[in-house]
């Protein structure tokens, strides 16, 4: 076990992938000489060369589009989109091409492309640097979408994503880049938790709290605080956003009878809606209350002096937990 930051853990996972598979190639803006604006790829170009760690011109659609061509040629491209809000110029290549090529070619052409996207807010950035666009991609068939919440998963899942023959969007919670944790770099990927599985982080009996990415830490804090009040929260780190591991969530909700889902992305049409609907369909008769969503608002990502109001905080999550439990909460007395 080694103590390292989240960013360092991804770096180490990328390094391992580059070492293990000569077909792995990294591409992106500023990822080579600079090592990425967050230094996630620091030192990799120096060690693996300019043909394996490629600084590209500034064109997101081309970064994805050329990765597709490399995949056609048998490569396993790992591309970095510098910030969440910069992914939209590449949207067409991701949605119309990356996601559909395996289907279009009836399985003849594989698209083992990993798209790394630093996402989420809380770092005081200007516009376009703090977004949570995951629902656009979870809605797109043909893609797998994952996110990680701790350095060990960051290290393991990036390698699993690269090994996947399907395209994977790997969302990195950028405000956790500098969080430290223990990482077992000798972990056997074959016996590690599969990429598509959710994980129960803290067992509980009263409420199931589903979180992913940057809010997993907040959710755990909420569970700790709730425990002081005698409320037992079961926290689930979703990890895979497409597909969601409903079996794990369902098993938990059958036990607790209550579901709270939280994410930074806006509420309407978000992943929380999907989780709430699916769980309601699957185990309606085990629910004691309507599922509750605690999310960002349906606003453009706000300027930094008010972003704390947009981002679900521990207290706002606990308010949602109170709602699910029928305890006094900020909406008490309101219908629906």
């Amino acid at each position, binding site marked *: 076990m080694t103590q390292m930051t989240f960013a360092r853990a991804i770096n180490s996972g990328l390094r391992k992938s580059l070492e293990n598979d000569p077909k792995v190639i990294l591409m992106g803006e500023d990822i080579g000489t600079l090592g990425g604006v967050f230094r996630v790829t620091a030192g990799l170009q120096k060690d693996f060369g300019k043909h394996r760690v490629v600084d590209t011109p500034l064109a997101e659609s081309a970064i994805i589009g050329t990765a597709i061509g490399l995949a056609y*040629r048998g490569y396993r491209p790992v591309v970095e989109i510098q910030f969440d809000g910069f992914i939209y110029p590449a949207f067409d290549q991701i949605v119309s091409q990356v996601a559909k090529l395996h289907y279009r*070619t009836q399985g003849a052409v594989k698209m083992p492309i990993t798209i790394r996207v630093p996402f989420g807010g809380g770092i005081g950035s200007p516009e376009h640097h703090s977004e949570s666009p995951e629902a656009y991609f979870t809605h797109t068939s043909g893609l797998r979408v994952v996110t990680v919440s701790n350095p060990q998963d960051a290290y393991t899942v990036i390698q699993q994503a690269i090994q996947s*023959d399907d395209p994977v969007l790997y969302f990195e919670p950028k405000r956790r880049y500098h969080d430290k944790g223990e990482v077992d770099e000798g972990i056997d990927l074959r016996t590690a938790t599969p990429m598509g599985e959710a994980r129960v982080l803290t067992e509980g009996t009263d409420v199931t709290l589903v979180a992913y990415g940057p809010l997993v830490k907040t959710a755990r804090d909420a569970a700790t605080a709730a425990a002081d009040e005698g409320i037992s929260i079961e926290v689930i780190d979703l990890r895979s956003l497409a597909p969601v591991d409903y079996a794990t969530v369902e098993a938990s909700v059958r036990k607790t009878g209550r579901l709270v889902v939280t994410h930074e992305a806006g509420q309407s049409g978000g992943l929380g809606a999907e989780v709430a609907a699916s769980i309601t369909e699957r185990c309606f008769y085990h629910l004691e209350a309507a599922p509750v969503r605690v999310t960002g608002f349906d606003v453009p990502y706000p300027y930094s002096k008010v972003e704390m109001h947009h981002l679900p905080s521990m207290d706002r999550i606990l308010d949602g937990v109170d709602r699910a439990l029928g305890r006094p909460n900020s909406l008490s007395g309101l219908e629906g």
Partner: protein
Amino acid sequence: MNIVSRVTNIRGNGARAAGSRRDHKSPTLRSHDVKRVRAIVSTDETGKGGSGAGAPAGSAGTGRNLIQLITPDGERVSHPEFDPWVKDIGDEQLCSLYEDLTAIRRIDVEATALQRQGELGLWPPLLGQEAAQVGSARALRHDDFVFSSYRENGVAYCRGVDLTDILKVWRGNASSGWDPYTVNMATPQIIIGAQTLHATGYAMGIQNDGADSAAVTYFGDGATSEGDVNEALVFAASFQVPLVFFCSNNHWAISEPVRLQSHVQIADRASGFGIPSLRVDGNDVLAVMAATRVALDRARRGGGPTFIEAVTYRMGPHTTADDPTRYRDANELEDWAAKDPIDRVKTLLDRKGLLTEQFRQHVRDRADAVARELRAGCIGMPEPEAMDVFKHVYSAPNSWLDRQEDHYARYLASFGDPAGATSQEGAR
């Protein structure tokens, strides 16, 4: 060029046997002809034509001459720079090119007929663009890789794609027709220009592998306005990848004339990216072949990308769902009919004494055989199964989709007879 002589050229449509042009008694110009002369001026081989939009003020262009080795009159003209690139094309190869051109036109006509008869959902005709497709495709090696648009069905034919496979996607029987790796050609791309980036990435892979093959990407004049094409040019130039950008300037992007896309000749855009370009008569199969060979040779020798503008004309509609009479002048079509890519080769063969009755019969027989095979393959295509809708979305199990698939199978089974249920679903 002298307008009168050009009109004479039109009169002397290459479809007639060599020499007949001079014998043809051209009537004096009527008012109809005068109108046509104007159309000629606006659609000349500068590639800026298209009567659908007014000439933009200050419309620029170097007016670079087209590379041409066979004139519309079927005359083989020498070109010191490009002749050496096709010196191996003797009589036999010329006959073979003519055969391919004719077969492809027949495929196109037959597919259009199949669509009219309800056997295909849609078809994008390539009528008039046969030489651009055959001349370039036959310059390629097997290990070169093609990324094309949806109109390069002639290229697919030259790559060896099975005729029935070409039609699969247009009949709606499959999401694509063939395994790209068997012929080294990706299946048709419908998003305009998207494939140019795939070709660029593929060429980056070739470069990394140290191979001497090349990638070739086909796209139209309309695509040159797309961001993806411009980004592909940037990447290809930056990394100096072995890639040929083959732009079929067919003058029309559905209803929009090429002048709406570009105020300079399309080929001239390449220089802004630092990419050498060639501007070729796209209706001249030999010139297209020569230009493509030049570009491929540069790519194989590590000289980076080349941009080819093949100036041709979409003589048919954009697709069978389109009606070009709503936006373009019939005279324009006539002008380009006089520059037909197949007629000029026929005339040349005749001049060379190669157009024997035996050869003509052989070409007719082959076209007939190709048409029969296409029709039989289309109509006899096996129907997909209901559950095929779920196949190949992912390469490994996906719990979301697996559940939907399971539920739909149960739904179909609830009818007792899944086949009956499928047909009922289809009838809704």
